[in-house]
């Protein structure tokens, strides 16, 4: 009898613990198992199993490390990535400080340009720089023909460095500007008061305080630049990088080697994971809690300082927006065959809509559906991560971050290897593209949703529960509305990133599921610069509209990726 009651009691307890959120957790874990863990396991198996004999082998890894042809691509990637990361930090941090500390003429407009220049796909920038500074680039020709000066080549290392730096320093700018908002003005005043001001103060007080954020921003730049496929493909020429090799090995029509591509992918993941962990370690060790009572107010700079900061801001931002402006301009130029001829027309736009209208609709539908999935998943995941701490949600938290360290082309390969054979065949479908985009973007959206949710005091939900609202009802009547602005702004950023995504899409697309970026890339390769420019302009327009909506939603709040 007593035993019976006890049994009933424990059962009741278990039932009580197992609520709707446990179900959500299990569901999410299941989906991750299917679309992330299973493909990754497949990738791992593929990389260590000989295809013909089915036996364990390290041949692929040995091949990679023993042949300089392959191994050098890794060194190249690391070299260019480190240089890009360092340069972006060196350029972006002072810019953020100037923007926070001083009045700059046209600051709001400059800020828009910075964001705009970072939001386009890097390879479009690369292609524009080729048009400007390439072998037969406009500027190159001008200087050669009129003045007789031969510009140094921008192909190879230099080109990748310039393109990626100008593309990615805005990330550092945004990160640093965000961190500077949390720096208390009193700290700067105290420093001044104790005899330390100007550049020295920037170096020994300001930079150390925002260092953790600079690490985080640096990591993001590192990941993006390491994974970038389009830029080195277009402008790299002999300078071969990692993603290019992965792509070539996988796609190569002359006996593309899945196993070898898998092995390279594994190496890539190991490297990015390693960098990720280093960054984590560094920034947790150096994080300071600051009570930001007084924010830094911009002041009027005088004399030399004023000239310098304006010169710096305008030339850096001008340089980074130039590719887009030039593409915008060429999209209205007359085209004959594949070359621009004098005169202006809308011909490129007619051709663009005529030939590739489908790509435009794909670029709305595929990221659109992915966005819906991302928003729902990120909100649910954020909720269980923040409000339901236990082993399973902790597991979900960790798993959800895995795609953060996987380069885009590796995501593509991983999904293809897993889903182009039974039991599940998805290759060539729109679903696989949606899965790819969702996986890649989810970590960012989850992080921002988690941050939003952590700001909302728990007792508001407790109040709702105490007033008789059910758990689910509390979630969608109380929690979601309070998270709404944060979720929507995160969603718009995801949207902007996804419509300019290339490295995953280029592997997963088939004719029916071609997106704008893939189409632009294809047109550039084919030499149809007119159509490519028109499509790029349409893409830029989409981005601008999205950013305007973002501004409206967040009322001018800062952007963070």
């Amino acid at each position, binding site marked *: 009898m007593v035993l019976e009651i006890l049994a009933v009691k424990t059962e009741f307890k278990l039932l009580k613990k197992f609520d709707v959120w446990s179900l959500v957790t299990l569901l999410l874990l299941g989906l991750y198992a299917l679309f992330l863990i299973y493909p990754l396991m497949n990738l791992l198996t593929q990389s260590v199993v000989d295809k013909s004999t089915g036996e364990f082998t390290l041949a692929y890894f040995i091949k990679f490390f023993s042949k300089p042809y392959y191994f050098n691509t890794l060194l190249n990637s690391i070299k260019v990535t480190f240089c890009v990361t360092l340069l972006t930090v060196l350029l972006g941090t002072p810019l953020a400080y100037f923007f926070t500390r001083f009045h700059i003429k046209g600051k709001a407009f400059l800020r828009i340009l910075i964001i705009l220049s970072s939001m386009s796909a890097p390879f479009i920038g690369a292609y524009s720089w080729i048009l400007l500074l390439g072998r037969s680039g406009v500027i190159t020709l001008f200087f050669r023909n009129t003045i007789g000066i031969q510009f140094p080549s921008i192909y190879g290392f230099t080109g990748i460095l310039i393109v990626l730096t100008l593309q990615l320093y805005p990330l550092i700018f945004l990160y640093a500007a965000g961190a500077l908002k949390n720096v*208390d003005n*009193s700290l700067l*005043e105290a420093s*001044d008061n104790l*005899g330390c001001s100007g550049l020295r103060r920037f170096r020994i007080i300001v930079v*150390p305080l925002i260092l953790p954020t600079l690490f985080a921003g640096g990591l993001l730049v590192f990941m993006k630049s390491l994974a970038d496929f389009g830029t080195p493909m277009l402008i790299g020429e002999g300078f071969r990088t990692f993603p290019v090799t992965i792509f070539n090995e996988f796609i190569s029509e002359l006996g593309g080697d899945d196993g070898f591509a898998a092995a390279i992918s594994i190496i890539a993941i190991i490297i990015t994971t390693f960098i990720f962990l280093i960054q984590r370690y560094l920034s947790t060790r150096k994080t*300071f809690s600051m*009570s930001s*009572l007084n924010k830094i107010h911009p002041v009027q700079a005088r004399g030399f300082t004023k000239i310098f900061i304006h010169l710096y801001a305008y030339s850096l931002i001008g340089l980074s927006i130039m590719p887009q402006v030039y593409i915008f301009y060429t999209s209205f130029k007359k085209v004959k065959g594949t070359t621009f001829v004098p005169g202006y027309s809308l011909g490129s736009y007619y051709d663009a809509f005529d030939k590739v209208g489908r790509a435009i609709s794909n670029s709305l539908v595929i990221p659109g559906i992915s966005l819906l999935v991302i928003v729902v998943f990120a909100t649910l995941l954020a909720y269980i991560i923040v409000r339901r701490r236990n082993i399973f949600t902790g597991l979900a938290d960790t798993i959800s971050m895995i795609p953060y360290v996987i380069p885009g082309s590796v995501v593509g390969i991983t999904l293809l290897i897993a889903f182009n054979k039974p039991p599940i065949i998805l290759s060539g479908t729109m679903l696989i593209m949606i899965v790819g985009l969702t996986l890649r973007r989810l970590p960012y959206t989850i992080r921002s949703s988690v941050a939003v949710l952590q700001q909302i005091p728990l007792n508001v939900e407790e109040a709702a529960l105490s007033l008789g609202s059910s758990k689910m009802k509390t979630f969608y009547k109380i929690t979601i509305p309070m998270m709404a602005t944060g979720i929507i702004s995160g969603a718009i950023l995801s949207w902007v990133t996804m419509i300019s995504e290339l490295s995953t899409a280029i592997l997963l697309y088939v004719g029916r599921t071609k997106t704008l970026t893939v189409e632009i890339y294809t047109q550039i390769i084919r030499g149809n610069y007119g159509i490519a420019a028109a499509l790029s302009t349409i893409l830029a327009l989409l981005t601008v509209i999205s950013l305007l909506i973002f501004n409206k939603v967040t009322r001018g709040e800062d952007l963070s990726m």
Partner: protein
Amino acid sequence: MSVNITINNAVKKYGKNTIIPDLSLDIKDKEFFTLLGPSGCGKTTLLRMIAGFNTIEGGSFFFDDKCINEMEVSRRNIGMVFQNYAIFPHYTVQQNVEFGLKNRKLPKVEIQRATDEFLKLMQIHDYKNRMPESLSGGQQQRVALARALVIKPDVLLMDEPLSNLDAKLRLEMRQVIRNLQKEVGITTVYVTHDQDEAMAISDRIAVMKDGVIQHVGTPQEIYHRPANIFVATFIGSTNLIEGDFTPADDNTVKLPGYKLRIGNLPCDRNTPVILSIRPEDFAMTKKDEGGIRSTITDSLFVGLNTHYFVELPGGQNIEIIHESVMNSVFRTGDTVFLNIKVDKINAFSKDGSRNFSREN
């Protein structure tokens, strides 16, 4: 070396907003001087003008006979304690304290000696290798004080330094700051909105409102003979009763339902006046000994004292504070008789700008 601070006709504007219209002030050498006022009164603005963080739109600021209007912040030789301490979070306690000395490029030995001296003086020597985030609020406050004083400043400025501490610690640090200031002997300008703190800690206080100094004086002067009604109500609590100063020789003020003899006032007969009577200046008895007949409407026991809410014959409600006793005879609804310590009454002009009792 400590200095006099002289401020002549200071003006502060933010765009078209005038925060301080015209302010003059003398702060004596080694004095503990407090700027007191409600938030938005311009006290912090003034302090920051002295420190050099705010621009000066008019007037002149002197340390002794040296004008500091155009002097760089870092060259004014001022010790400053910020509201949130502004301890550099990436430096240890010792690094924070020696920061100013290092910027002055003093010899290493001297930096070491002075840092140690102030770490010991502030009793934080044991924590010198700790990072600030592991310190309590009071300890951080001590670091901030040590850092400000170690550079041997001419002036010490403090901007609401105790406002982030809990009540008990606030009392303790109040004492620490007071003793330290006397020991070091340095001209100190202190900003607070807490009147108790201001009275406990200061040699002199300037009460400010809307960028204008209302009253400068010792805590006693300000409490007992406030310059105007704003000061009377801002410092401590008080009861304001309107009445008429009547003719005849008995110098009484006619109030609704009774008369109060308060001595001569330097104002015309038959002019309306406002009397300010502090709650502790009433004596309350149950027996009629010629006091004002009133009724207790409510009471509030707060420990040391009991606050009684009493209705005067004219229907006006006032507050009276009595020391609490074991078996109080006063109950709500009781009729009581009030006597007033007449010499402590302040009589103000109707608009509240003049205190006639002060001019007596």
